[in-house]
């Protein structure tokens, strides 16, 4: 069964690039390095999958002849088309062989595999269909995704828990059990929507710059759809832990307000004196100022003194400076608000400008420190004043 068509290179390249996002970096199934091309009328579907998620891109072709599917090595065709200077290319397929021809007469022959072997891409049929603002989704994902576990046996921690509460608040939650991020926005969202989504798949929304995106989901699958492309991901098996149980009541035993930029730069300087993987810094909180310290056998010692508003119980707490800096970096308000409970309980961190309808907050577990670690030097500095 022979197939042939002609396609505009710029459009074709866009589709190929989109599908290539689903090509696996390494795989035990050779067929996954191929893209599945399906010609139906004047529409060409290009699909690629790494089994975790699949991308299907559609592109219009001219002079189509025949109907059916064939596979083409994904990276190879992408490399050829990205370096193409001519505006059109015609493609012919016969069996496993695909031939690309340019108007000037350049010719490339590619060997595919049996399209029968290509994994069946299942759509979340029968699932609920929603339409969401891409801006809200991207904001939520951007604010929380860094808190998701990179690699954890508890698979649900590697995902973003995306759900809509009974109060119509859409929430994005991520945690690696050391830290937790929650972004919530109240709006006309469908209550009951719930999914644990691998963070990587949200890149699809970023790349397809649309205002609205159609989302269809079942318990197992979730699909993002734009008019000319779609991504289907397998969802991570839940249930997601009841994160609300760990959110403490405000205010804490100590409440701090500190300039965001000053805190961030102080953290960056202290990071020089910390060691992987805990990046321990020790912070002393007291009225009108906080003092941060770090030391490492290689780099030496560092001390930071920041003027700040602090009300409540005086406290010494250890933090992973890397984690704290990552959180502060995401906070956009002029000041950062922190609620402390005791040196062994998670601190609550939020910007000062959150509203009732839109909020973001983080919980960060302190690093356990020995009682003596914030020793004499801390007290002596107190005497100096």
């Amino acid at each position, binding site marked *: 069964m022979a197939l042939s068509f002609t396609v505009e290179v710029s459009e074709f390249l866009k589709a190929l690039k989109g599908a290539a996002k689903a090509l696996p970096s390494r795989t*035990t*199934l*050779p*067929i996954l390095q191929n893209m599945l091309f399906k010609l139906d009328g004047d529409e060409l579907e290009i699909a690629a999958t790494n*089994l*975790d998620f699949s991308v299907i891109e559609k592109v219009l072709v001219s002079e189509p002849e025949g109907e059916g599917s064939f596979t083409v090595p994904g990276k190879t065709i992408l490399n050829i088309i990205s370096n193409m200077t001519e505006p059109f290319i015609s493609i012919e397929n016969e069996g496993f062989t695909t031939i690309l021809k340019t108007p000037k007469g350049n010719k490339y022959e590619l060997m595919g595999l049996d399209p*029968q*072997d290509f*994994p*069946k891409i*299942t759509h979340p049929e029968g699932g609920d269909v929603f339409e969401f603002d891409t801006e809200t989704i991207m904001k939520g994902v951007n604010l929380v995704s860094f808190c998701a576990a990179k690699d954890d*046996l508890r*698979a*649900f921690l590697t995902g973003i828990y995306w759900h809509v509460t009974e109060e119509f608040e859409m929430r994005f939650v991520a945690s690696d059990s050391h830290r937790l991020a929650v972004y919530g926005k109240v709006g006309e969202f469908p209550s009951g929507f719930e999914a644990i989504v691998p963070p990587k798949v949200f890149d699809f929304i970023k790349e397809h710059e649309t205002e609205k995106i159609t989302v269809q989901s079942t318990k*197992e*699958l979730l699909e993002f759809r734009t008019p000319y492309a779609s991504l289907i991901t*397998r*969802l*991570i*098996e839940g249930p997601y832990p009841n994160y609300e149980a760990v959110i403490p009541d405000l205010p804490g035993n100590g409440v701090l307000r500190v300039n965001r930029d000053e805190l961030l730069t102080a953290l960056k300087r202290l990071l020089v004196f910390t060691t992987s993987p805990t990046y321990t810094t020790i912070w002393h909180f007291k009225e009108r100022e906080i003092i941060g310290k770090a030391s490492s056998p290689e780099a030496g010692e560092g001390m930071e003194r920041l003027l700040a508003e602090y009300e409540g119980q005086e406290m010494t707490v250890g933090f992973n400076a890397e984690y704290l800096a990552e959180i502060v970096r995401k906070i956009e308000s002029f000041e950062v608000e922190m609620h402390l409970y005791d040196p062994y309980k998670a601190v609550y961190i939020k910007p000062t400008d959150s509203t009732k309808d839109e909020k973001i907050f983080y919980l960060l577990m302190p690093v356990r420190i020995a009682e003596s670690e914030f020793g004499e030097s801390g007290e002596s500095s107190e005497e100096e004043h």
Partner: protein
Amino acid sequence: MEMEIDFSKVKGQETAKKILESAILFERYPPLYLFVGPRGVGKATMAVEFAKAANCVSNDVRPCGRCSQCHKIERFVHPDVHFLLPDKPEGLRQKLGQGGGVRPPDFDPSREISIRQVREIQYELSRPPVEARHRFVIILNGENLTIESQNALLKTLEEPPSNTTFIMVSDNPDLILPTIRSRARTVKFHYLGFNDFVDFFKSSTVSPAVLYRLSNGSVGEAKELINWGIISLRNQVLEILIKKDLDLLTAFIGELYVEKPLVSKFIAFYGVLFRDILLAKLGMSNLITNIDMKGRITEAANALHWKVIEDVFEALKKAERALKRNVNIQFILYSVFKPIFRYEEIVVV
């Protein structure tokens, strides 16, 4: 219409077939099957056939071998039928599926299924199946799982993911943790009867009757014996025994491909040969295993002193132990031949 289950690719094993057929007809799968029994009687082939039958879309005979599910599983490209074995997955497709049946590699305690491999599977299980109705993880050589891997796996088996069945294939089930064995539905496989066995070797140049005796009715073992060149090997060894030629022995050991699992097989075969020689010496040559070599074996029996045969059996015992302790392989091979030369004078007298 009544659906039919067709496991004819595996010969014999009627009890195992019955258990597995009913699982498919009722679509009720336990989280873990343990397929135990001797090597080369169809355990791994059955695991693959079972996965096919459970996912086949045909309405009358399952597995049909024609639908896309059967097709993908058979060619080891199904995204939901995973294989764990002590080998790189890339080499898997070439290794498996040669000559009809599925042939797991020989058990070799030095090679293991690492905890990393188990973790990769666990990652996969945290997601729903891609296209299968029922997902399978087939662990060939279950005994090659390290203790750590087994414990990691135990965690998954305690809370088995839905729609997933593990099949652990093993000919040394004693090496599998009791905590895992106790969670498994054990399916026993047995040596084949002669009638089922013969089917595989109709066109073989070696007499099936001899193969059957040499392999105890293990098709896998018998195929290996053929590949190994068992006939010429037997001739060579008997030649050495009859002529008591040290140079011949040195050349033979030099030529014999020295790989540990192969040597342990050679030791076993050598034992069988000496059992035959002993029987011939006792005048019971109608009972010998290598019936087609009766003449040569009687010749060897006449050439060897009683004491030699006794010492060879003693040496064989020691050799088996030495193999487990990584003693030099050539040395082991010499040690089982040594008694022949020691008593040369006695025999001459």
